[in-house]
């Protein structure tokens, strides 16, 4: 099917009743120039209604365990010392060799907290009362950490992740699977990660083959959208990443990335290269773009990269990606996942320790504004790249949907992405809106997943977290204000 034909058959994104934008009915074709930029006021006028519908669709927590956890999180987040102690417990839990060992760590960590609120004060006093109580506290802490991890991690391997992935598919939500793992410090570990990637692609491909087709999830104006979708980390593909030598890391990872891409091409799967901290951005970007530009991969597979809105130079970086996409015609246009960025604390601390200008926005509103400006640019270039909007911020997402509508882009021209364990209610609300949603699903064991889990917990309890603000009942109008 040509992409023009796909466009012609694509369903239109339904706006709120009576608010259809003028551009909504004009089907673009290959020869059309990119959609004209809509007036910002036109976009802004649509945001409140979209946001309210999404918020209503997200509903409230019916799961009592989730409600308790939300209250607990709120209590933790309001106390920096407690937050630090519990993060450190979550962090060290997989390295503990026994329940008494866990209890000993918990007791030592809580000793650094002034007056731990219940139940943590109780835990501290029990952990100091002999072996039997230590075991009780250890078992409880272990179970707590495991339960928390289970929310974010869908399974230890591809095979046991399939049921969760399938449930999402039935609910009209696609997935991208991410392999959690230990840091890669040797060639053997890099090989093992690449082999796991290949195996996961194969397992998912077999496991998902018989599932019912879903046009919204599997087609967009550019053509086929892969059902099997794997996110990979360059830091796991090579032990040679060095901040001052991007070419060394890229050269180390290239053969393994090629092997994964070849498998994906055979299976019709999508490979998405994750972005990590700024230390590796040049290596990740140069590796991804140079390998994808090789003749071998001109016809496939579908592939993408991540763009981090919190970086103050994100605009220039996007210029580079768009310029590459224009110059490098591939059967599958480059997918660009726009995220806020998950290494904020790392970037700030590293810059402060070395005396550098902080490379990320330190003002939440500036960061949100940047996210929206970058969203606009991606939507403006939906003819050369596939825009993927990955945010849990209702305002940012509503703004993207409004921008999509105002530009008259087809309903399937933009993909919305959420994280398993954090963005599930939003994901389902987006799916109910008839939008393509993909949930980022990490798989791996508890030990391997701890770095990921800690990062997610930090994000969820950060003072400027949208999810936290929403959960604690901040007024919806305020949450939907333009940043």
């Amino acid at each position, binding site marked *: 099917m040509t992409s023009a034909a796909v466009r012609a058959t694509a369903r239109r994104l339904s706006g709120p009743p009576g608010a259809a934008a003028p551009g909504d009915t004009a089907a673009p074709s290959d020869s059309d120039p990119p959609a004209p930029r809509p007036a910002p006021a036109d976009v802004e006028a649509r945001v409140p209604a979209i946001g309210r519908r999404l918020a209503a669709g997200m509903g409230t927590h019916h799961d009592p365990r989730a409600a308790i956890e939300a209250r607990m999180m709120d209590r933790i987040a309001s106390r920096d010392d407690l937050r630090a102690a519990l993060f*450190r417990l979550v*962090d*060290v839990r997989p*390295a*503990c*060799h026994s329940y008494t*060992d866990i209890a*000993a*760590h918990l007791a*030592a*960590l809580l*000793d*650094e907290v002034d007056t731990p609120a219940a139940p943590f004060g109780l835990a501290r006093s029990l952990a100091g009362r002999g072996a039997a109580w230590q075991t009780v506290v250890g078992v409880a802490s272990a179970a707590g950490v495991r339960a928390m991890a289970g929310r974010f991690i869908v399974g230890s391997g591809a095979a046991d992740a399939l049921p969760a992935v399938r449930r999402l598919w039935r609910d009209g939500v696609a997935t991208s699977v991410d392999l959690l793992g*230990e*840091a890669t*410090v*040797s*060639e*053997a*570990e890099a090989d093992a990660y690449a082999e796991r990637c290949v195996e996961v692609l194969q397992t998912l491909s077999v496991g998902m083959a018989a599932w019912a087709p879903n046009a919204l999830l599997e087609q967009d104006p550019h053509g086929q959208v892969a059902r099997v979708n794997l996110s990979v980390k360059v830091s796991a593909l090579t*032990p*040679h990443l*060095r*901040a*001052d*030598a*991007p070419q*060394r*890391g890229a050269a180390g990872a290239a053969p393994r990335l090629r092997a994964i891409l070849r498998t994906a091409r055979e299976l019709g799967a999508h490979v998405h290269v994750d972005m990590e901290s*700024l*230390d590796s*951005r*040049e290596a990740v970007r140069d590796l991804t773009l140079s390998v994808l530009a090789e003749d071998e991969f001109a016809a496939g597979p579908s592939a993408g990269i991540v763009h981090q809105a919190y970086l103050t130079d994100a605009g220039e970086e996007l210029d580079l990606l768009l310029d590459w996409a224009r110059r490098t015609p591939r059967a599958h246009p480059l997918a660009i996942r726009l995220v806020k960025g998950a290494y904020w604390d790392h970037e700030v601390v590293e810059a402060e320790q*070395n*005396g*550098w200008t902080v490379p990320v926005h330190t003002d939440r509103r500036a960061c949100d504004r940047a996210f929206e400006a970058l969203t606009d640019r991606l939507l403006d270039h939906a003819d050369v790249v596939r825009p993927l909007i990955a945010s849990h911020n209702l305002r940012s997402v509503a703004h993207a949907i409004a921008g999509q509508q105002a530009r008259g882009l087809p309903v399937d021209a933009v993909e919305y992405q959420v994280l398993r364990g954090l963005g599930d209610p939003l994901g389902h609300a987006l799916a109910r809106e008839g939008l393509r949603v993909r949930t980022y699903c990490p798989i791996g064991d508890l030990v391997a997943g701890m*770095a990921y889990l800690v990062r997610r917990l930090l994000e969820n309890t950060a003072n400027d977290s949208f999810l936290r603000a929403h959960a604690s009942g901040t007024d919806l109008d305020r949450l939907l204000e333009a940043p």
Partner: protein
Amino acid sequence: MTDTAPFRNEPLLELRRPQPRADLVAALAALDARLPLRAPVVIDGRAGTELPLRSVDPSRPDRVVALSGDASVDDADAAVAAARRAFADWSSRDAEDRAAVLIRAADQLRARRHELTALLLRETAKPWPEADADVCEAIDFLEYYARAAVALAGPRELVHVAGERNVMTYAARGVCAVIAPWNFALAIPAGMIAAALVTGNTVVLKPADQAPACAAALYDALQAAGLPAGALHVLPGGDEPAKALVAHPHVHTIAFTGSSAAGRDILRRAADVVPGQHHLKRVVCEMGGKNIVIVDSDADIDDVVPALLHSAFAFAGQKCSAAARVLVHADLYDELATRLAGAVATLQVSGAETFGVDVPPVIDAESVARVARYAEMARADGTVLAEATLPDGDDAVATPGFFAPPLLVADLPADCPILHEEIFGPLLSIEPVASIDAACDIVDASPFALTGGLFSRNPAVVAHVAARTPVGSLYVNREITGARVGRHPFGGNRLSGGGTKAGGPDYLLAFVEGRVVVENTVRHGMVV
């Protein structure tokens, strides 16, 4: 000086961005076009004409980096005499004036930082990030001691009672001999010279014979900053001028950084009072180490491996703070040993100018031979778990670089010299221990106490080890090198040094002597 901003570390170059890397490459090309540099003997601002010695690029020893003077005992006498003549004027200046010279010298280094980074890379085979950190540390010492000296110049707080006025001040001691190493060829001499000068002493510098051009660059910066010609003299050359300075009756303070053996020799000689000497010499000494990292069973191996690689192998293990031994809790030993071995095998051994190089050449052929002797011992007495490969020879280069392969060794007998002697090269040993206290016992049994490391996620264990360890600097859950001025005061205890902490709040006290004036203010029974 009084309105100077509070001290902040000089920002490192952000080498993860392309532009600073390109700037350095350009600076290296410009430097190469000027080689060889000249590093003469300089006494009273007059440069000697004879340049019989040379320093070479350890990455490519057929490249001569500098031609240098070879100072004699007579030169040492002349330099001390000149420094002595200049002492009255320099020591009587306001602390603010002397501090201002240091601040201006820091500006000089800042203005030339790319060139100096390139020079460190060429003369000592220091890779870019480490060479940049060396320049920044030199700047930091100048800025930090300038502020500290002004703070020290005010009167100390004493107990006061009616009828007496009590004042305690700190005065310069006299001529200070600075004997510098090659491994931080800018930062360490800058720190020792700056501390001595800013407190009012005059200085005779004996730089390392491997790095005379770095010392000459430091001299130039201080001259350009307005330091009087008599306040600093430079004696490049071999051991002779250093020995002459140590024994000289008119040298008051000896600031030394180098090997343990050399340091003890200096202490012994400095203890003798020779004819014409009217004071006791003070020795500020920083010596070697045998630095041990303890890894507890709850450590995160993902963090431990990169930190160990950097601590043991960066700059080919030629930092006094470098990791030499790892003691791992038995529960974690097999996994860590396996992963660390896999990581050591990936280390890139290459010339210093290669961005991202993990292990550059060692400083000279003598070092290659020394490291090779220990490597032989490792093969004979233990199990070599990993060894990184050396770079392929370049046919266009007649003399290969001074490369020594990084090596990880296990299963050594407890009395093996590898476990007890400072190797100063890319060799790391790993041993299992039954408990953290067993590891602490091993640390405690060592005569050295410079740096140490601990990986543990239990605050109680961290507190316990911190209380037990004798080392000058214990680094917890991070690499054990890379001390920053003002943040991580640095200096060894036990046989690793006199215990002074460079870049710390009390370092300058080693370069001054206290003077107290007690004045009776009662006259005819009245307090006047």
